């Protein structure tokens, strides 16, 4: 049976795309294979590890477990869209660097996107909020203390700036 491809319209990191895709394409495949955005990582593929996390509209989503067609008409932000166009790092990226919050970096794009979605929604997270909200993002080498401290620091800075 010849399966009809479907039209997908989506904005990724501010750029609009319109393309024909196979219905079974996952959002992660679309980003990595079709758009060349390899920041979101492919690991467990069963929504356990969070390495593939991207933001759809305002929510942190595990791209491995969502069909690309499910984000039709929506706006996706990946780690590639975090820094500003002139290359200035997002405060979360800069603070992760300052706090040595990663070693191999494999989990980092997913962590950054989960943290961004959380901070955009909750301006005053305490440590417990951060731990709970970041529970779906596993790290196999650095451990968890540094990046929790980093996110706390960004949250405090944000609060101070108001």
């Amino acid at each position: 049976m010849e399966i009809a491809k479907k039209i997908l319209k989506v904005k990724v990191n501010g750029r609009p795309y319109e393309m024909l895709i196979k219905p079974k394409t996952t959002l992660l495949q679309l980003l990595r294979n079709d758009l060349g955005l390899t920041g979101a990582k492919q690991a467990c593929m069963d929504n356990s590890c969070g390495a593939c996390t991207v933001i759809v509209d305002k929510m942190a989503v595990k791209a491995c477990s969502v069909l690309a067609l499910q984000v039709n008409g929506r706006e996706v932000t990946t780690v590639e869209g975090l820094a500003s166009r002139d290359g200035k790092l997002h405060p979360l990226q800069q603070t992760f660097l300052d706090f040595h919050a990663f070693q191999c970096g494999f989990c980092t794009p997913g962590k950054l996107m989960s943290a961004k979605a959380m901070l955009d929604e909750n301006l005053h997270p305490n440590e417990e909020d951060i731990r709970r909200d970041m529970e779906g993002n596993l790290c196999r080498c650095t451990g968890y203390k540094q990046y929790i401290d980093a996110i706390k620091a960004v949250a405090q800075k944000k609060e101070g700036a108001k």
Partner: protein
Amino acid sequence: MPPTYFSDLEGIIEFEYIEPKTTKEACSLRSQYLERAKVIAGGTKLIASIKQREINLQYLINLKSIPNLEYINYEDEEGLKIGALTTLFEISQSSLVNDKAKIFVEAVQQRAPGINRTRWAYYMATIGGHLCHPVSSADIAPTLIILGAKAVVEGLKGWKTIPLEDFFDKTGGPTFQNDEVLTEVRIPKQSAEMGLVYMKSSSLLDSPALNVAVLLQLDAKHVNIEELKIVIGGITPQPLEARGAEALMKEKPIDNDLIEETAHAAAKEVGEGSDPETQERAKELIEEAVRQAVDRAIGEFALGY
């Protein structure tokens, strides 16, 4: 063994993606393709099932393409009406649902205590998908049952309502036909003087999370128990009401020993055939929930003065 590691949808056969514009069209597609087709709502369960090769499909019918299935309305006469595609996130944020059926929001929120692990699933999962998938239904259905909720189901021949307690078969799946779609959940207006409680235990390694929802109402003199509903999810695939145990307490005054006896009877009634440890866990949970329901029923009364 189905591959569970590094598994993507690459290895599975291609499927057609159909976007109906009306519920009727979705029903007609379902009746045409039967088990070769599945409807997708939030997809938080369905995509995992496809990946794990639990289901094999040739047609995926996207319910999200049907307009007007995402809403929350309230009228005194008919109560709350929630469109089947409304997400659990929207439900828990809704001031209407918080105001008219707080206990339901409590159940939705306890569904996923470790939020981010499940946060995206919470944003995307719909009330319809939740009720139409066995296991998950156990989580929120008990509260809907004590609230007297009804499911509105549409088929090729028209629509009908099914009381939530009759919505599930023995496998936990919905009882409706292959050519039908769940379109709405209705929760009738609640009386102010009821003690409503929802409690959930954590899952153990080899034992599922148990849930219990209790409704308790005292008579006009606030002496006897006029109405009692105890619904338990997680032991059997479909949520069950412990009708025999409820009868032990109805029309009787509140009594410490009677609460314990009722909890014991309810756990036995619903947990028939399950291991003694699960029954014991259920008994403890039910007992605690009934005690809290008593407190809440009396509390509402005390506030009335």
